[in-house]
């Protein structure tokens, strides 16, 4: 069990939410662990994990009540001013992740789906080696491993 100093923050997109919902029982387990990290964080309590408003809305468009569950794992944010002119969703997520990577714990993990993981990895903002060191993009079983590792429960 950690003391709330979790070694990474998560930026979550709606593709990740859709992907984990394919297995509801596993989704419950994953959500419980992300909730633990999100609420127990000493660095960013209740603000540890981030989801863009647009991803949050897409995640609940077929079931509004799901929003209550997602609010327990990630804090929805509107697009920051410096990204207002950015039209590419993956660029927005990566550039936002870069912008918070200088704050503790200085490691960001983007949680997405396997097919969208490639979109992120091929994005022009994800070429620099320093960026790749600070920001990891994961999905599926590797995402679960990272969540286990960070939550340490």
């Amino acid at each position, binding site marked *: 069990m950690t003391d709330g100093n979790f070694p990474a923050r998560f930026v979550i997109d709606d593709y990740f939410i859709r992907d984990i919902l394919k297995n509801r029982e596993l989704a419950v387990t994953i959500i419980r662990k992300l*909730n633990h990290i999100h609420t127990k964080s000493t660095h960013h*309590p*209740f603000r540890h994990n981030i989801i863009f408003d647009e991803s949050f809305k897409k995640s609940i468009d077929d*079931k509004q009540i799901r929003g209550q*569950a997602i609010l327990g794992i990630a804090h929805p944010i509107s697009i920051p001013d410096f990204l207002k002119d950015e039209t590419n969703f993956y660029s927005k997520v990566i550039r936002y992740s870069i912008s918070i990577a200088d704050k503790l714990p200085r490691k960001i993990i983007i949680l997405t789906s396997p097919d969208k993981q490639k979109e992120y990895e091929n994005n022009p903002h994800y070429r620099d080696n320093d960026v790749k060191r600070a920001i990891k993009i994961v999905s599926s079983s590797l995402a679960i491993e990272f969540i286990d590792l960070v939550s340490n429960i």
Partner: protein
Amino acid sequence: MEENTNLHDGELIEIEFANIFQDAVRNSPILKYKEASLKEEILQAKPDQLLVVLSTINSPKEIQSVDYYDEEFLRKTL
């Protein structure tokens, strides 16, 4: 943890940090409850339990529902 005694729709309230909220529920002459049992549910919450409190945004505020953020809640909402 910022202290916040205001209620927002769907807000998660961690009672471990929110004894002020429980005190407010206990003493507030303004808060109303859709069902009387909701007040007791909030007051019975133990440290470390997360509550999802739905309330109206109009004044006087009326608490509509209370859920514990647990596996049963997640199965229902996901």
